[in-house]
């Protein structure tokens, strides 16, 4: 079976060697919505029309990163990237770059922005300061081609695990890597695997949590759309290690492209015996099914997610028992996030020790972040743990646009908090971010400038939690509503100081008494903005400033 993988690799490599140049077109969701699909076709036509078919290849890829500059085109091996290329410009680009060998200066990446122009893609700070492990293939290979994935080294880790490693050895490697759950909680992945492995049961399940519900987060979407086989292979390795034969990907209905590409990945992998019975010619069998969510933020919580897979309302259960002990249909179940699974393959190939050498001692490896909000370079990035927020926002992200002043970075979505300017030099790892009153979360990072009202941000998230509360436990159902009402009153300039005091009394109570993570973290945005931007709250209270308000709210409760 290894021979077959090598054969495919040789074939793909040979084909790509025939090309002098490769035009990679980003076909992530962002670029597609800006017209990457037509661009791809137009580039192919232009290459054919100019008689360059034999020497120039045109291939679609997953997300390359700088989403607001799309549609993006990378020319390899020239290391040149072009931004905002519309279909009408395809012929000119092919003629100029591929035909005459001249760069199209005006279209170079970031040439329309405030920061440095991207002359050589790998030298620009946006890419130079990143370290891509989970996103290694994302934006490089064609996500719809299993052969491309195999040529990039795919399914070797699974083969290696199935034929050369015992289940204990796989788990030991993951433990040694220090990998922690990338969904936000940061639980050590190796320990979780070991717990499921140790529970004796004829049936066990592996679930990949792709219910990326945090508004402002799109890392998992990028991975699922850009490199679905990487996730599938990670799930298969996990299934082998813990002794499961069935896996589920739970993914949001809002991500149709991710669903489509993952379905295709499953189909292609089955056809090549990389899934199904006798995977890669061994005794191991593994099947994967996709379950599409239906729009409930709480389903990111593992017990609610399990309820949803079972076809019920997504309401959480008290833990323990943890899913590792009693999960899907009462059987031991391993649940990891998409990004966690995407990190498994490189760990097995390069070793746990290698992975542990990246990042900080307690938070090993890299983390993907979705940059959004008031930031010049929005998009998908991956950096070693311990990179400072300042580096992420100002060096990679290119700072705040329109000459405005940075105010706060929001991490962790509705469960996180806002980090103000004075803490920008804190290294980003699980513990440090918690100390600042926020959480690392799944990786959404939203930048706010001086024009954003932090009280409005707190109300925005409280409204989100109120709406998304499943209604099972009282502290969350009633508490979020009460806190929202108080925040709304303050925002409208009708608040009093006793409202503030009430908020400060309610928040810790909801935190301590709620059943699941949603309620336990719902007060975080409120508490962190109160901690760092109390003045803004006070300024809205009439006694201090007559008639100030931040306007109506987006949703009519």
């Amino acid at each position, binding site marked *: 079976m290894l021979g077959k993988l090598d054969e495919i690799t040789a074939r793909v490599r040979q084909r790509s060697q025939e090309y002098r140049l490769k035009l990679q077109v980003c076909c992530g*969701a962002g670029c597609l919505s800006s017209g990457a699909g037509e661009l791809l076709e137009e580039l192919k036509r232009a290459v054919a029309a100019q008689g360059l078919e034999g020497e120039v290849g045109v291939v679609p890829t997953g997300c390359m990163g700088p989403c607001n500059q799309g549609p993006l085109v990378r020319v390899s091996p020239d290391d040149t990237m072009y931004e905002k290329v519309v279909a009408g410009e395809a012929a000119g680009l092919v003629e100029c770059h591929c035909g005459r060998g001249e760069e199209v200066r005006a279209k170079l990446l970031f040439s329309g922005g405030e920061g440095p122009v991207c002359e050589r893609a790998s030298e620009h700070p946006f890419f130079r300061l990143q370290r891509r492990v989970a996103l290694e293939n994302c934006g490089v290979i064609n996500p719809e081609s299993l052969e491309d994935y195999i040529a990039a080294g795919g399914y070797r880790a699974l083969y290696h695990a199935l034929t050369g490693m015992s289940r204990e050895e796989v788990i030991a490697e993951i433990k040694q890597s220090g990998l922690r759950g990338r969904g936000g909680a940061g639980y050590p992945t190796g320990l979780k695997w070991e717990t499921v492995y140790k529970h004796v049961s004829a049936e066990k399940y592996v679930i990949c949590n792709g219910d990326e519900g945090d508004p402002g987060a799109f890392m998992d979407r990028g991975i699922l759309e850009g490199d679905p086989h990487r996730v599938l292979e990670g799930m298969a390795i996990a299934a082998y290690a813990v002794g499961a034969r069935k896996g589920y990907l739970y993914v949001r209905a809002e991500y149709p492209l991710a669903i489509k590409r993952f379905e295709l990945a499953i189909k292609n992998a089955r056809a090549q015996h990389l899934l199904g019975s006798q995977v890669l010619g061994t005794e191991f069998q593994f099947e994967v099914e996709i379950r599409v969510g239906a729009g409930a933020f709480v389903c990111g919580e593992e017990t609610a997610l399990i309820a949803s897979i079972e076809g019920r*309302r997504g309401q959480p259960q008290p833990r323990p028992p943890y899913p590792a002990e009693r999960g899907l249909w009462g059987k031991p179940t391993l649940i990891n996030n998409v990004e966690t699974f995407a990190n498994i393959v490189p760990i097995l190939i390069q070793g746990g020790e290698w992975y542990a050498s990246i990042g900080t001692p307690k938070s090993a490896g890299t983390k993907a972040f979705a940059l959004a909000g008031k930031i010049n370079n929005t998009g998908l990035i991956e950096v070693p743990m311990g990179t400072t927020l300042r580096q992420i926002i100002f060096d990679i992200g290119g700072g705040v646009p329109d000459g405005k002043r940075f105010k706060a970075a929001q991490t962790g979505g509705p469960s996180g908090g806002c980090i103000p300017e004075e803490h920008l030099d804190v290294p980003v790892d699980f513990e440090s971010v918690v100390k600042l009153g926020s959480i690392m979360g799944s990786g959404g990072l939203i930048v706010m400038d001086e024009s954003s009202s932090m009280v409005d941000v707190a109300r925005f998230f409280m409204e989100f939690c109120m709406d998304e509360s499943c209604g099972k436990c009282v502290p969350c159902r009633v508490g979020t509503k009460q806190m929202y009402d108080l925040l709304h009153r303050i925002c409208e300039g009708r608040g009093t100081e006793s409202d503030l005091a009430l908020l400060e009394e309610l928040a810790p109570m909801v935190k301590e008494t709620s059943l699941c993570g949603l309620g336990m973290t719902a007060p975080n945005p409120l508490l962190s903005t109160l901690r760092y931007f109390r003045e803004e709250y006070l300024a809205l209270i009439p006694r201090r400033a007559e008639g100030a308000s931040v306007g109506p709210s987006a949703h009519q409760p």
Partner: protein
Amino acid sequence: MARQYEMIMRHSRNSSGTAEPPRTDTRYKRIAAAMQKHQCRPDALIEILHKVQDAFGYLPMEAVRFVAREMRVPPSRVYGVATFYHFFSLKPKGKHNCVICTGTACHVRGAQAIVNEIQQQLGLRPGQTTADGKLGVQIARCIGCCGLAPAVVLDDQVLAKVKPGEMVETLRARVGGAR
């Protein structure tokens, strides 16, 4: 909502089959085929409701009853699931649908202004549909296109960096063009 619930309950009590859905309707055939594929296992309920919504654009009561009966799931549970998840709608949507993303990135980049402009110019609040059923306006929590904020999904097409005025013009053109 309560009335709809009553309707299902009433049907389940005397399910002698008077309200059989038209067997000739290919949409029901597609739904039945999907249920077959899952062997009518109750855990596939959400998958099946997705199929129903794909077929009809929303969850018509008749189809909800059909699913409950065929899958042998209590109608109350189907109703519970259908109303728990935001993605499912028991009301028909517009012929054209405009979903304004109000995720964090879109929020700080001005999604509210789009909602306001549509409300002022077209008189449509989120969740409402025009009387002629041509245009529905909804809001989404986050569509994951944060790099393009503020984003709007118009008839399954993502529009990036939307400006309120232009959005209203686009909607007018879309509805006008459908005439």
